[in-house]
């Protein structure tokens, strides 16, 4: 609530910190940063989803809509793959729900960084829809260079370009399915792992991040053997992530005690 004040106000609401650009200019800047790189990585990685949708008997626009709505590669692959395999709808919904649980920690670690002083709940929920691996890893790093109150505008520009370019290439994948030589198909499938791991490495700032990456890689073959089907990633994330957090905190405390 703002109160009209005449003289030197005790606590006037500080002006929004936008770093000299307007909100629209920040949106354009976000869009620019997406179109010169990251948007194409996620878009090419998801071309295969279009092909899967066609194999499963879905119409063209359903393939495109799956990117706009689900916007999570593994869940889309799971969805069309399961439909093609004739899995029961309830079972499909359940496995997708389990697979997308990983979006929760991503959203929870990104959204507080995006929140400006005047961000309301609706905006946060809208922002959460665009969180997926690429948008998450890129935003976690990039928003640190954006003034607090401009972050949401930047993020929406960045995220919209990513999702729209990807939707277009999902459609392209639908049309071109089957025409691609196998080695190039393998290359498209390799795009996600190589990009994810380098993006994670680039984002790593402290011991905790490095440990989390190492634990995730190392635990995967173990969890694949012993964890219940569908829940292995959850166990890897919570188990390895918690261990990395605890060890990282201990290392940090030790370094601060010595300093």
């Amino acid at each position, binding site marked *: 609530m703002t109160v009209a004040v005449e003289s030197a106000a005790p606590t006037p609401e500080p002006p929004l910190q936008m770093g000299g650009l307007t909100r629209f200019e920040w949106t354009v800047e976000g869009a620019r940063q997406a179109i010169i790189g990251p948007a194409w990585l996620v878009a090419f990685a998801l071309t295969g989803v279009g092909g899967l949708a066609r194999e499963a008997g879905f119409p063209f626009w*359903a393939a495109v809509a799956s990117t706009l709505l689900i916007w999570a590669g593994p869940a889309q692959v799971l969805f069309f793959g399961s439909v093609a395999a004739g899995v029961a709808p309830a079972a499909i919904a359940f496995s997708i729900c389990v697979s997308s649980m990983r979006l929760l920690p991503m959203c929870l*670690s990104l959204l507080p960084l995006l929140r400006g002083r005047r961000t309301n709940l609706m905006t946060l929920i809208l922002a959460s*829809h665009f969180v997926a691996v690429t948008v998450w890893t890129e935003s976690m790093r990039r928003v640190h260079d954006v003034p607090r109150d401009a972050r949401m505008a930047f993020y929406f520009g960045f995220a919209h370009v990513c999702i729209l370019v990807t939707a277009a290439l999902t459609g392209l994948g639908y049309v071109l399915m089957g025409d691609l030589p*196998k080695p190039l198909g*393998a290359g498209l499938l390799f795009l996600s792992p190589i990009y994810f791991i380098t993006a994670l490495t680039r984002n790593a700032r402290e011991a905790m991040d490095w440990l989390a990456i190492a634990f*995730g890689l190392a635990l*995967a073959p173990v969890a694949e053997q012993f964890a219940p089907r569908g829940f292995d*990633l959850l166990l890897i994330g919570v188990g390895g*992530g918690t261990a990395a957090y605890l060890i990282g905190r201990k290392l940090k405390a030790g370094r601060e005690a010595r300093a």
Partner: protein
Amino acid sequence: MSAILDAAQAPYLFLILFGFLPSEVWRFVSGFIAHGIDENSQIFVWVRSVATCLLAGVVAKLLLSPSGALALVPLAARFGALAAGGLAFLAFRRSVMTAVIVGETALIGAAYYFIA
């Protein structure tokens, strides 16, 4: 279900009910929780660690048990291409694009060798 539906709309309804909603629920819930999280709190740090570890697990899974054409490339070549990308990343000022291009070139090269 199909009785009350136009056949043309059925795939979209199916997509929304069994694909979109079960996935989106996590984002929706996190919007509410994030509204109350302070970015300097320890929970926030822990959650970042969990998300990072989970994603590294995804990478390992994608390479250990790949789908489609990637499965035709031997395991050693898949991880070899990953290592090539990693080395390029370290050699060229931590550039993600460089790493992706070098890794992809290595993998597609290996794929032509082993598949064709």
